[in-house]
């Protein structure tokens, strides 16, 4: 197999230009799909037999929670690739993931709290699912804090990458927390083996929203990656050429 495309990704100018070119291809579909899913979820979908209109919170809560896990997995993967192959762009990608993932995690916790009060009768409980998701937020914040605390960029990259790889064990714990232990949170509706426990009229906006959020993450990651590369390569000759100075 020819690996040149992979090695070319490790070149900062190539990665920078590729990110620039790809961003609109993710950003526009993300905007369209999110708006479509919002309309489908808030207007077209029927109310739930138990939760009534309040169940529409799921259209923001579930996709942000899925993204919080997906972004962390991406970040840990980028960190592992960077550690093993010593690719600086991969370190930059991992660093670019962290604030996005932290935002999705924060949004999942806040929407979950707003969802939990009317449905369960509580804003917060020290439940396995809720607690492990809170730990995920602390992992993101710890990763960002560690990066910021180490001045030497190379050491900051490597040390924080180890933290990102170590923290990935929390991802399966969050997903399976509802089936391994007794939890207030219900079992997965969609991310399970077999058919989703949801009527098709309610399900499609949820899936469209998930795709939209995934594309949004990709677009945000590409923009942040470019900013990260610019900051790291600020003295390189190619940047002066690129910016036409």
């Amino acid at each position, binding site marked *: 197999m020819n690996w040149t495309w992979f090695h070319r990704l490790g070149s900062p100018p190539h990665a920078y230009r590729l990110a620039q070119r790809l961003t609109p291809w993710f950003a526009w579909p993300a905007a369209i799909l999110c708006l479509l899913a919002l309309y489908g979820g808030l207007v077209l979908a029927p109310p739930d037999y138990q939760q009534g209109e309040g169940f529409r919170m799921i259209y923001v809560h579930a996709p942000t929670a899925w993204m919080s896990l997906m972004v962390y997995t991406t970040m840990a993967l980028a960190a592992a690739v960077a*550690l093993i192959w010593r690719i600086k762009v991969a370190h930059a990608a991992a660093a670019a993931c962290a604030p996005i993932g932290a935002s999705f995690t924060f949004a999942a916790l806040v929407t979950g709290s707003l969802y939990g009060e009317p449905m369960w009768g509580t804003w917060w409980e*020290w439940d396995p699912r809720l607690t492990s998701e809170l730990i995920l937020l602390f992992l993101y914040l710890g990763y960002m804090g560690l990066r910021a605390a180490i001045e030497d960029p190379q050491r900051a990259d490597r040390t924080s990458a180890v933290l990102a790889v170590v923290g990935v*064990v929390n991802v399966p714990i969050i997903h399976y927390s509802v*089936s391994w*232990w*007794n939890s207030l949170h219900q079992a997965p509706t969609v991310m399970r083996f077999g058919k989703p426990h*949801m009527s098709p009229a309610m399900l499609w906006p949820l899936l469209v929203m998930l795709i939209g959020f995934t594309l949004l993450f990709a677009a945000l990651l590409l923009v942040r990656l470019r900013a990260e590369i610019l900051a790291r390569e600020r003295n390189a000759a190619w940047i002066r050429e690129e910016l036409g100075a």
Partner: protein
Amino acid sequence: MTPRRRRMTLVIAILAGVSIAGALALSAFRRNVTFFFDPTQVAAGQVPVGERFRLGGMVTEGSLRRAPGSLEVRFVVTDYSHDVPVSYTGVLPDLFREGAGVVAHGRLAPNGTFVADEVLAKHDEKYMPPEVARSLKRRHGESRQEATPAAAGPQGAPPQPPQAPVSTAAPPTAGAGS
């Protein structure tokens, strides 16, 4: 080539080590991680005596009794092999239903009644429009039997008899406390 191999082995070793440490820690803390105890654990005496704990399970159909003129309610929490009677004074959450999941926080009284000071509703993972729920209830057959109670954990609750009445289509009037 060799240093890269070494780094790859190192990353995999770190991941494996942390996973094993995490698995050991979590299995050691199993009792503490569990959010609630089910009626079988209560019957087996596995709950802390004289201390507050959470009881989780399904509300037995037809067990809800309201004391007239007060907020006091009594109901039975079951995991379909053991039952625990619960008494509670206060407003029940909107999603409290007979046949649906519930988590109560309180103490076990000497007479075996669980005196709760907080009751949370635990809904299941099924979402459907009211019409679908009604028609499912009308032909209550296979679709009700395959449903599992939301409260049953894999090692917490024993396997569930298939004929157990699960609330796929409980009437929304059953327990709204407000």
